[in-house]
């Protein structure tokens, strides 16, 4: 017979015992919709990547495209309700051709002329990448500047740090490095590398790709094991703070570290995955029980992080 590992968080347990009990349905939009997340984050003083533009209707496409084509810096196009990096497009540069057309140089789709780019945007507005398939908005954000350590490891994209926060207490963390296989995206099921981070030290202690343990990044061969995440304290505190934005008791917080601005809240997830357990080679149930049974109420975010570091091993 199967030997049950009681420590593993299963999908059934996650849905019935965590999501249904601790996540308020009314607050899902705050988490699912990046524009709402951004607005809320500002009122709570949570640092986020700078938003350059919102595009909400097809009518706004033309005027806003003109603004976009004049941008000097690179930027990122995101569907407001997209998940797992779906629909995200990084525009490195906008150039003009001889007959004053604009070419958008993207990482994922190569060079797009203005019509192709416009079509891409209107696809987002029509809800191609939305969670529920209905009308969506577009968020244009500044591109994050990757810190050197990470750039050396995974030049194909910026890694993000996923932290599971239960009732405001960070309980598990991993960092996802994009690979060539994953097409620059951070989705583990597409072939990105997931690395478990030791909460107390902020050091990577185990990595997986496609469910197999690895020690080095497959594209660059850089050592992952033992790598310390820069600004680790900040990252944890940001995760704990972010959980105050919405009444989502069981939350996945995605954080990026910008070269200049430090830890920034990228997005949140009200139904965080189970694969973090694979990256950490450890089940979540133990940590969940500790928080549910012992965690003291009414702590501020700094104390919550401190409590987690002391109590969750």
């Amino acid at each position: 017979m199967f030997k049950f590992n009681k420590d593993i968080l299963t999908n059934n347990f996650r849905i019935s015992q965590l999501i249904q009990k601790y996540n308020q349905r009314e607050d899902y939009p705050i988490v699912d919709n990046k524009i709402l997340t951004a607005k809320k984050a500002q009122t709570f003083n949570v640092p986020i990547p700078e938003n350059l533009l919102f595009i909400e209707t097809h009518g706004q496409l033309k005027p806003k495209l003109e603004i976009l084509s004049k941008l000097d810096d690179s930027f990122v196009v995101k569907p407001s309700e997209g998940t797992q990096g779906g629909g995200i497009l990084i525009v490195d540069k906008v150039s003009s051709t001889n007959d004053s057309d604009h070419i958008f140089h993207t990482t994922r789709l190569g060079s797009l002329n203005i019509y192709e780019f416009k079509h891409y945007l209107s696809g987002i507005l029509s809800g191609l990448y939305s969670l529920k398939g209905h009308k969506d908005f577009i968020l244009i954000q500044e591109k994050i500047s990757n810190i050197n350590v990470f750039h050396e490891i995974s030049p194909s994209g910026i890694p993000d740090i996923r932290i599971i926060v239960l009732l405001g207490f960070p309980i598990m963390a991993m960092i996802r490095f994009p690979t060539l296989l994953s097409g620059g995206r951070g989705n583990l099921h597409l072939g990105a590398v997931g690395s478990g981070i030791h909460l107390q030290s902020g050091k990577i202690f185990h990595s997986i790709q496609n469910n197999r343990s690895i020690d080095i990044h497959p594209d660059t061969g850089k050592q992952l094991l033992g790598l310390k995440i820069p600004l680790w304290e900040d990252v944890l505190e940001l995760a704990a703070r972010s959980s105050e934005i919405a009444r989502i008791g069981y939350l996945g917080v995605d954080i990026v570290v910008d070269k200049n601005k430090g830890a920034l809240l990228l997005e949140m997830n009200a139904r965080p995955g189970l694969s973090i357990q694979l990256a950490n080679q450890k089940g979540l149930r133990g940590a969940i029980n500790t928080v549910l049974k012992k965690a003291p109420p009414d702590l501020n975010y700094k104390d919550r992080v401190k409590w987690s570091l002391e109590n969750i091993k």
Partner: protein
Amino acid sequence: MNKKAISASFVLILFSLGILLYKIYVLKIPFLPYKSQNNWRYEIKINKNTYSLIENQLAEKIYLPIPPNLENQQLTELKIENMKYGTISDAPNGKLFVIDKETLQKHKQFKIEANIVISNKRNPIKKTTLDEESRIKYLSLSWLTEEELNLVKALNNSLIFKEDSPQSVLDKITYLLLDEFVIKPEITDFREVIEMKNGDSLSQAKLFMALCRLNNIPSRISFGTSVIDAENEKKVKHIRLFINEYYVDNKWQFFHPDFPNIGTIPQNFLLIHRDITPELELLNSRDFYSIQVKPVRKTFFDSKEYFENTIIKHDNYANFSLYRLPLGTQSIFYTLLLIPIGTLILSIARNFVGLYTFGVFTPILLTLFFLETNFLTSFLFLLSVFVVGIIMHYLLNKLYLLAVPRLSIMLTITVIMYVGFALLTSIDDNVNTSSTYTLNYFPIVIVSVFTERFMILLKEEGLRNTLTTFIGTLVISTLCYFVFSINILNLVMFNNPELLIITIALNILIGSYTGFRLNEFFRFKELLKK
């Protein structure tokens, strides 16, 4: 699992079993109804489309026959469309709904629907008396022209001797028709029929009748259709039949070359009208009358009889019994009551096994689609929608279309494919008569839901995930289809709907299971080793 859920489901199961046991042991209502006869739905209507083609052939009055009650058949429900525009004539040989030619021209759409129980017991034919007036009527040969009469007489003289007893006369006529007569539907001229002994089914019956009457045996032609039941044949076949009746030994006995056991009530036969007069011969015209006979359901028991014999004795319980409903509605509930079982299978497949499906209830809808049409065809249809959908996905990707027009294109293609499949599957069927393949909106609604979900998933999650989800969906809907096809389960649920409470209880138990799904054993294989 939490205690609340366990106790809640325990209470529900006890409650449901309580009702069941009370029913069986106190009210003495059996767990399963006894088997008995066969229910059919008879439908006759005047074909609007071809009506104008034969308008000039019409008599002043048009008749729609309503099947009579006989030893072997029982009319249980009757519905007439546009009833107020006609009258019902209560002839001794079966009711007729009579419409004036003018009314018909004005309204055109007339339809009779009836539920009929046909028993396949070999009931003996009852003795009847024949009064003098009827005797004269059934011996009359005035419907033949002089030339035809002479031809029949000549045929008769070559066949029958004066000293022949009525029985040997009948035997000779019977053998003539069995051995020599060849069915050739294109021959309808009666002179030719007599000379060549070829002709359509009606001419054959007329020849038999003419010979009988000539030999002083009262005889008539009746009209009906043979129904071969769905369980044995998969497909219901019904052929329009003109069948002869002759009056011998104080009994009206049947003869038709296709039916064995001469002299008994034919099996699998629905008698629609007795004594076809010339104005009713139009019943032979497929262009004018469309006649359909469909099984109401596959099981062999008469719910009306069951209701009256067993259930109605208990006033209070009878109020809650599904057998009170009209038969047509009942047949819907047979499937409807199985849906909770389907959802139970779905809950298990998703929460214990971890299969993924398009939407939550799409697999159940697909099961209904399978049931509504036929399994193999609809299964192949879904497969082809899936394959074409994937091809379209890659083709449409090149056009950079917006989401809704994209879906509209795919739906249009689905409709085209549906039309194609409907045509393909009906190739071997004779239009209007032998096909049970009924087209309605229901299947296409289901397929649209399916197509939409599947195209969105393909766009969002890519081919691999879509394929897994598609397989999951097919597995569940196929499983449900086979479960739904278990006849006994149909009966159990219909007879004991209180069992539905148990499915709620089981769902509560499944819903409070927080452990591993089967697929998580593979997903967390590495972790579990530790």
